[in-house]
Every structure is written in C-alpha cells, then in structure tokens.
C-alpha cells in the first residue's frame, strides 16, 4: 500500500462547525479529525476574544485494503457532520469513501481518589496496612477530552461516499455515494435502507452520478441531491420507500452560447446546502454559485459568478485536472451572505441583499492577528490597478475547497490546503 507523505496527510479535506459554533471539526487526508473549541470571552483576558484552540485530535479512519477488489480504500475524511447535542457529550459522524463512524466526545475533569484497595498509582495496597474504610471522593483534575468510536456503519456503499447528512429527527442520517443514497438509524449499524438508486441496468448507459445530498433542516421527510448534470432533485420520503421519483426537479436550461467540450463538467454541482430557513438551496458548480427557491424549479433565483475569467481557460484547467476540483459553498447564519472558495487561496463572499461581492485571500501575510483582510481583485486585462492579480499569475495549486460559516456569528473557517484560517468579524456584522 502506498502511504501518504507527511505533508500530504495534513491536507484538510473537510471543515464543519457544530450547531452552536462552539466547536469546529476538521478532517484531513490522513484520516485524522481535529476539533477546535472556542474559548469563552472573558473580561479578564481580553486578548483571547473567543478564539479557537485545539480541543481534541484523534485518528478517525485508517487506510484499508479491499482484498476482493484489490483496491486500496483511502483514509481521507470526506465529510464530518455534528449531531445535535443531547447531553453533556458531543457526537459527530465522520466518513471516508466507504465507512461512516459515530464518535462520542466526552470531557473528564474529575477523578475519584481514596480507594480502599489500591493506592494512587493503582497498585494494590498491602491489606495489612488498611485499618479503616473510606469513601472515594471526586477531586478535580486537568481537563481530559476522551473520544471513543460508538458505531461503525460499514459495508453500505459500493461506490465512493461523497456526503452525509443528519436528519432533523436526530435519529436517522443519510449517506450518499455516486449512485445510491442510504438511510441509516444512528443506533443500528448492520443495515440501512436504500432510498435512492440511480445505477442503470447497463453501466454503459450511465450518464450522471450523485454529487451531494442533504436533508432539509426542518422537514424530516425531505432531502435534496445534486447530480453531475447540474440538476437538483428534492425527494419526499413519505411518497415511496424508494425515492427514485423526485418530488421536484430543479434544472436550468443550458445557455447554448456557452457550449464547449467542457460544458458538462462545469455544470456538475459540487455542493448543495439548504439555507437555515429551509426556503432556499445553494449550489456550487465550477464557475458559479446559485441560489434556488424551493418553490421555483425552472431556474435559480440568483446566480453569482465566482471566477468567470476562467471560462476561456477551461482546456488548460482540464489538462491539469483543476476543472474537477469540488468547491463547497456556505450560508451565513441569517442567509443573507453566501461564501465559496476559489484559487490562489482566494475566497468569495456575495451579499444577497446589497448585491455586493468581495474577494479575500487566506494567507499568512494577510492574516496576522487582528489584521483586517484586504479585498483582492483579479484583473482580466485592460486597466490594472496596483494590487491586482492577473489571471495568468493565479496559483492553481492553492485552492480553497472547504469553507464553513459559524451558525450565528460572523466567524468563518477557511481550509487552505493544510492550513486552517479562522476569521472573525468583530467590528460589525454587515458586509462592506
């Protein structure tokens, strides 16, 4: 088996805030999960204004070998999803290409002391020295975070898992691979229900695959999945056991003037996210982000160009495989701003109300503590301002595929290859 170089294993492959925003989980190519916790803001230490520190690190998945197919199974964490917190412990689901695992994260800050039969190091006491009985008491200790695997949901998928989504009922979740979507119960690992199957009888007839899926945030019977053809299908689990027939099909007709060899690739949806309100969906394809209204299937209500200057470079981007990059997208807490990544460590934000957009860069130089991010601009010929970057000098190896937005506040997490940037907007919550 080929193992990853030390550098490659650190490449962040997913980023996810929990439901309160107190915790931030990242997964990487080496199968590890790192959880950050936000320090509570305190007047005593004004410098640590709610910053995120490492809370726990654990190895979630290991590389495996499928002997039957002679295939290596990558340990890369494709997605992490937090479960809503139901008690003192936190739980999350992490998945690689084939196996989903449920992890429980607990804190231990007390330990019992004063045992009768063993001493503080745990060694059995000489009974002749024991003259009286004592009741062990709990004494405080340094905080220890313990992570344990509670469930392993294996053998549910033939193809590569691309997404998982926890249902609002907090009892079930779904996992999607290229051709199928399965519904699991969080407590049952030995079976799952197949709810979508788009595998054709003859694989030669294959024309599209599932690229992402998500449960509706409020209606536990509804979910959406996106396809490589650029369409979205909203499915209702009450309608039938096998949701091959969609309730709604969201599809925008192709613009014939933009047709090229690569039209199909760039229309493939790489990510789909419901808005917090549940009224809208956000999709990302190679060049745009689109907002869809659940009540309108014919076309998106808003389309934003992420990096349209790449449209004339598609052939080169096909050659160097960049055209296959899967960018994610995110809503802010109030669904008024959407965010997505791009190349050269740039990421873009679009304010849906003011229709203004901004390009920012995640880099060490621009990210000294409390520095203000400077808007960047890509120039496409013509007049060039001083700090502009020309399209030809963009670094396509620096791509921001994974971004996350705090559920309530203006705090964003940006994964730039093997670095995690967390930006907080302290001054105001409005977009400039």
């Amino acid at each position, binding site marked *: 088996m*080929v193992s990853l170089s030390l550098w490659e294993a650190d490449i962040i492959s997913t980023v996810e805030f929990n439901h309160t925003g107190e915790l931030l989980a990242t997964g990487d190519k080496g199968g590890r999960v790192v959880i950050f916790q936000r320090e509570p803001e305190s007047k005593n230490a004004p410098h640590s204004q709610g910053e995120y520190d490492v809370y726990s690190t654990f190895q979630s998945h290991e590389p495996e070998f499928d002997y039957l197919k002679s*295939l290596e*199974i990558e340990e890369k964490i494709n997605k992490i999803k937090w479960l809503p917190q139901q008690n003192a412990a936190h739980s999350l689901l992490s998945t690689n290409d084939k196996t989903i695992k449920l992890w429980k994260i607990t804190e231990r800050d007390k330990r019992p002391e004063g045992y009768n039969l063993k001493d503080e190091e745990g060694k059995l006491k000489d009974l002749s020295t024991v003259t009286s009985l004592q009741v062990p008491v709990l004494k405080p200790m340094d905080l220890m975070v313990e992570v344990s695997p509670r469930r392993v949901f294996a053998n549910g998928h033939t193809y*590569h898992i691309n997404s998982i989504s926890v249902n609002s009922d907090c009892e079930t979740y779904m996992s999607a691979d290229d051709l199928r979507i399965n519904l699991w119960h969080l407590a049952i690992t030995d079976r799952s229900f197949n709810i979508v199957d788009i595998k054709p009888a003859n694989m030669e007839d294959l024309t599209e695959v599932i690229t992402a899926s998500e449960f509706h945030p409020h209606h536990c019977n509804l979910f959406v999945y996106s396809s490589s053809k650029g369409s979205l299908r909203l499915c209702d689990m009450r309608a039938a056991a096998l949701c091959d027939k969609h309730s709604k099909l969201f599809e925008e007709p192709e613009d014939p003037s933009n047709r090229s*060899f690569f039209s199909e690739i760039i229309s493939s949806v790489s990510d789909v996210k419901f808005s917090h309100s549940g009224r809208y969906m956000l999709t990302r394809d190679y060049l745009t982000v689109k907002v869809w209204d659940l009540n309108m299937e014919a076309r998106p209500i808003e389309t934003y160009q992420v990096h349209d200057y790449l449209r004339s*470079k598609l*052939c*080169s981007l096909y050659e160097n495989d960049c055209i296959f990059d899967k960018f994610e997208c995110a809503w802010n807490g109030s669904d008024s701003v959407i965010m997505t990544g791009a190349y050269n460590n740039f990421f873009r934000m679009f304010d849906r109300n003011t229709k203004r957009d901004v390009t920012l860069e995640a880099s060490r130089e621009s990210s000294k503590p409390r520095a203000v991010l400077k808007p960047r601009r890509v120039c496409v010929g013509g007049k060039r301002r001083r700090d502009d970057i020309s399209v030809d000098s963009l670094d396509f190896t620096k791509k921001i595929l994974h971004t996350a937005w705090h559920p309530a506040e203006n705090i964003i997490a940006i994964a730039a290859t093997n670095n995690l940037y967390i930006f907080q907007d302290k001054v105001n919550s409005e977009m400039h």
Partner: protein
Amino acid sequence: MEFKLEAHRIVSISLGKIYNSRGQRGGIKLHKNLLVSLVLRSARQVYLSDPCPGLYLAGSPVPPPQPGEPAAGPPAGWGEPPPPAARAAWPEPETPPERPAGPDARRAVDAEPAAPGAGDTLQGGEEPAGGAAAEEEEMETGNVANLISIFGSSFSGLLRKSPAGGREEAEAEESGPEAAEPGQICCDQPVLRDINPWSTAIVAF
C-alpha cells in the same frame, strides 16, 4: 479545422486521464471518469463531423484529393515547415514534416499540425513553451500508445489499423482516414465489435 485539432488534443488528454486513473489510490473515481468520457465523446463527435481534410499521419507531402475539398486542394504551404505559432503546441518545432519513424503515436500527433493556418486558431493561452511541450506531449502520446494497445484497434479515424499496434508507413498512408468511415469499428476482437469504442472506457472498469 481548428476544432478538429483541438478535438484530437482533447481526445489524447482524456485517454491519458482514463489510463492514469487505473493506478490511482482509492480506486477509480466514477464521477471523474464519467466526466472524462463525456468530454471524450464530445471531442470524438467534433473530430468526426468536422468536414475538413483528414489529418494525414505520415506527413506525406501530397495528400490525395478529398471529396468535397475545393479545387485549390490543401492550403498552400502543406509540406513546408508550418509557421511557428502552429508548432508551439506540439513538440519539436524544427522537425520537418517527413521524419524517420519515431514512437507510433507520436507520429500521429506530430504529423497533424502540418496544416498551416491551424496555428492561428489555437487558443493563445494554452500553448506551453516549446521545450516543455516536448516533454508534456511525449507523456501524453505515450499514454495514447498504451491505450491503443489496451483497447485494441478500436480507434477509427485516428490511426490506421495495423497488427503492430499502429506503426504507419508513409507510402501506405494515402487512404488512411478515408478507409475508416466515421464510426466504423476496426477491431480484431469479435467481442468488442458491437460496442462503441468510446463507451468501453466505462465498461473497461
């Protein structure tokens, strides 16, 4: 004409990707391979439907007359070293059109751009510098050669079918592309005869 050249280039890049995907860690990525095969299909359609003279594969200085081709025949300058712009995307710009036999697939690639005027229409931003291009193209055409042996001789219109895996002789090339009608499958393996060669990319996995 420009579409035909670009189409062929895209075909060879796509085949290279499919070939390389077989060795990828984690197994073949179905999504990516599907997209590549769709590009392959589009490029092949353009390649076969572009009504311009076929791409002669051995740099023969006097291409045979084509049906539908204007009386002027191939554009002037055929057989001469093409303008530098045309060669920028292909290796070895100084090589004259007729060269000693090299790697099989490379001949196919090198001989094609001997059509002046093609260079003008190649997309400006995508031509690597000469030296780098030589190495890049070498790898890609090497992949094409490998794929040809994998898929048998199911490539019609690109290379003439030959038991040696594609080696052409200059004098036998007169009827090259015309002998293979678009869509005709030249294949010595009966089982593949009925399968569209491009869709075998998916089936092969």
